[in-house]
């Protein structure tokens, strides 16, 4: 009987103190989450733009264009995001380009994940059946119209599942901006840990919030997008 009572009391203690902890630190977690969400959306937009541009450039037959895209992709995929973040923040000012840390954050994350996305764009476009290119060619469509009206819509549907994974990676990558003192969720968690020493609660809560964001916001949204695209292709 004794051990059960002890366990119950222990659980009660932790439970009570966790609720207290949440009510006390809640606002800071919320501030951090809002900053993380902001960094996420801005990075995502930049990543998508970079991915589309670089992916299309890599398919060009012009060697200069293809080469530029290749260099961008290999550099940003071949080095660590943390290195890129520090480089943009500490080294770029020496070349005259100083970005405030808020901008540095999502620019680094966007450029890095855009490089991975470029390969997904390229793969998506190349997975469109060759017959579609030929049919568009047979009705004399210009290359630009053909890409925009026929190939890209079909490539988009093929690309969405791996893009879903990429979006989760993007969310996780935003946590690194805390290391250049951007006040996101990760940063707040470290601050709270520093002031309360309740590491499990501080970091644990942050982990849970990231998890909720990933599983209950990002993934369902990407699945919804997939369904919408499938319906547009008449495949619902």
């Amino acid at each position, binding site marked *: 009987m004794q051990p059960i009572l002890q366990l119950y009391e222990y659980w009660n203690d932790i439970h009570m103190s966790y609720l207290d902890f949440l009510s006390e630190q809640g606002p800071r977690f919320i501030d951090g989450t809002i900053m993380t969400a902001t960094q996420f959306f801005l990075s995502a937009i930049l990543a998508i733009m970079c991915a589309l541009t670089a992916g299309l450039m890599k398919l060009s037959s012009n060697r200069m264009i293809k080469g530029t895209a290749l260099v961008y992709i290999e550099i940003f995929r071949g080095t660590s995001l943390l290195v890129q973040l520090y480089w943009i923040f500490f080294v770029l000012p020496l070349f005259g380009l100083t970005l405030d840390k808020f901008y540095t954050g999502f620019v680094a994350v966007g450029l890095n994940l855009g490089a991975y996305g470029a390969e997904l764009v390229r793969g998506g476009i190349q997975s469109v059946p060759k017959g579609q290119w030929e049919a568009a060619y047979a009705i*004399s469509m210009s290359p630009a119209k053909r890409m925009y009206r026929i190939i890209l819509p079909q490539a988009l549907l093929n690309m969405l599942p791996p893009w879903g994974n990429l979006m989760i990676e993007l969310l996780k990558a935003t946590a690194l901006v805390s290391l250049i003192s951007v006040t996101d969720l990760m940063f707040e968690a470290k601050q709270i840990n520093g002031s309360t020493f309740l590491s499990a609660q501080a970091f644990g809560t942050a982990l849970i919030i990231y998890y909720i964001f990933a599983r209950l916001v990002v993934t369902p949204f990407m699945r919804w997008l997939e369904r919408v695209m499938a319906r547009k292709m008449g495949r619902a």
Partner: protein
Amino acid sequence: MEDMSQYPTELSGPDVPMVRFMNVTKRYGALTVLDSLHLDVSEGEMVTVIGPSGSGKTTVLRMLMTLETINGGVIYLDGKPLTHMEKNGVLVPADAKYLRRARSSIGMCFQHFNLFPHMTALQNCMEGPVQVLGLPKAEARERSEELLSMVGMTDKKDQHPSRLSGGQQQRVAIARALAMRPKVMLFDEVTSALDPEVIGEVTGVIRKLVAEHNLTMLMVTHQMGFARDISDRVCFFFDGKIEEQGAPESLFGNPQCERTQQFLSAVKAAD
């Protein structure tokens, strides 16, 4: 390098063919698929091309559609060069812009239909006229609906290709090609991917086209009976060359060359 001065920059005279292959050669690496081919198709003529696989028959169509590049000779369309353009009185290989303009008078239907899956049947037909010919949407819609009714697909015009059977998709594909008002129509094994019971739908549409329109047509097919019925001329290809050609009754009924006889008896045995 071939001496291009032997080729006229324009065909003139009383009987200019709609399509002329002049000394056309096509190579894939070391393999020669078409060898100094000469082929004329007159306006309004329906020519069927038959032959074993690898004989080059599909290549003929694809080269006319400029889906493949040419390695020797010139192809003329309606008197003007298709694969080449004139520069300082001599023919040089055509650039992309010239090709796009020149091939707009040719339409093609493919073995695997290649309808645009993200558009309805009607939208598929309207796409060319609106985006390439610059027609206003209302006019394109009218033209497309007319063509869809001709191929018997009016009630399915708002369906996506995934909801249509193979025969229905191919009929929409024919309407889509016709919407561009081509001078020449190419049919590349359009019934080979269809279940036997729907082949009739598609051959019926092609029969109608032959009967009611004066389109120049080239067809590659394995349907010998159908070819015999509607063709003006049949060409038997072997190893990149025309082995024998002539009116369907004489080629099918009384083939002269040994290879033609072998091919026709093999096809008959498989039927």
